[in-house]
């Protein structure tokens, strides 16, 4: 099972395992990682599962679709590595991926 490291805004780390094919959002909510609201359940409708992908993992995490990009664009905490975690499916290649959580979800 690939593992994911979520780092809260205050620095608290959560290293959890996830199923291949599950989104990082599902991996977070299934393991009670705080800071991911995921109100819409993974439909790219709400932008409450915003994460900031660690530089080293950006290429492997893929790129945001147009609609994901639009949701992120007006997020006040948006950084160049921002993604919606519901749009990143976990793969073997992403084993060990590190993502930061923003202070707030909008």
């Amino acid at each position: 099972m690939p593992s994911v490291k979520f780092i809260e805004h205050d620095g608290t780390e959560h290293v959890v395992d996830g199923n291949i094919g599950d989104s990082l959002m599902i991996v977070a909510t299934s393991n009670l990682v705080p800071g991911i609201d995921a109100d819409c359940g993974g439909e790219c409708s709400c932008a409450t599962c915003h994460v900031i992908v660690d530089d080293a993992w950006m290429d492997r995490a893929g790129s945001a679709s147009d609609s994901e990009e639009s949701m992120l664009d007006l997020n006040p905490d948006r950084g160049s590595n921002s993604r919606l975690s519901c749009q990143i499916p976990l793969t073997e290649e992403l084993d060990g991926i590190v993502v930061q959580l923003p202070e707030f979800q909008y």
Partner: protein
Amino acid sequence: MTAMVIIGAGQAAGQTAASLRQGGYKDEIVILGDEAHPPYQRPPLSKQYLSGEHGLERVYLRPEKFYADQSIDLRTGVTVSSINRTQKTVMLDDSQIIHYDKLLIATGSRPRKLNIEGSDLKGIHYLRTIADVDGIREAMKSAKSVCIVGGGYIGLEVASVAVVAGLEVNVLEMEDRILQRVTTSRMSEFYHSLHSNRGVKIHVNTACSGFSGVDGKVAEVICGASAINADLVIVGIGIIPNVELARDAGIDCGNGILVNDHCQTSDPDIYAAGDCTNHPNPILNRRLRLESVPNAMDQARTAAANMLGGDKIYAAVPWFWSDQYELKLQMVGFSMDGETEVLRGDKDTNQFAVFYLHEGAVVAVDAVNSPREFMVAKQLYGKQVNAADLSNPEFELKSLVGK
């Protein structure tokens, strides 16, 4: 050992249990649900679950094993018959008694039913649960002509799935336009022509007065003097909040279970969250009963924090979404709160947003395939804006938000 008991197993219930654990609560959590499933998401039921795009596991709020992993006592298929506030217990219909220290009522809502001639015929469905949709999906396999009673979001989402699946689709709407209860005539017109262009026949000013059947199965929907052929009927005419358990226990109810801004009912040890509640919204400055997932999730987080002795207030601008065909409609606030409509984008491209202003401040948006406008409206709520800027496609919305 203390016990947190949750009546209901919908999204508010599931999120409350998760938030209690996230909040560090280690003792007993019991979820009492009358359906066969762990807490699941209802929005996909009339969309991706109906179309077959999503399976069950994708609809579940969290994987089934989550509850065991977190020592949450999830009991499905059980019915609560009463709450005893003096003893601080709930009784199940098999007379089993469960003690609570804090109780959350998350009983949700149920579809409003038709009670007219023929309304008990086979082939007439309502849409609220996984079991309901399983029944509709099975019926759609052999159906040729589906009639949807009610032109609200649920009905229109079902219409879009059914017409794409190749069925003949009629939609009956009592009012003079679809979505009359929830949006403006401009949006109603847009969705009316969208559906008409895809082959859905919409009949406004048309009330369903009864059904006729053959061999106990529906064959026609009767609308006064005329009739429409239908071998499958889906009724979506609104919901009724499930307040009975609370009301029978002497908890204050109005249009919904009355809660304060802490999601607390008139009994301080009993909280309520989700569709069943009637709550104050300090931003909109009025009480609301919402049929919405973000409301259920936010109230759940608020209730959980306060059940653990916190002091968290629920104050959020309501938002909603609806998927029809390849169009994603995202809404913030209530369009009827504004007296000025500002269009941004071009309706003919199926990508546009309508901002609603009250005395110059943004109070709502309807955004079609326009996530930027949706995100900006969430942050601009209540703020003064220049209408000319909003309607100018060259104007950078980004300049209106940020820290």
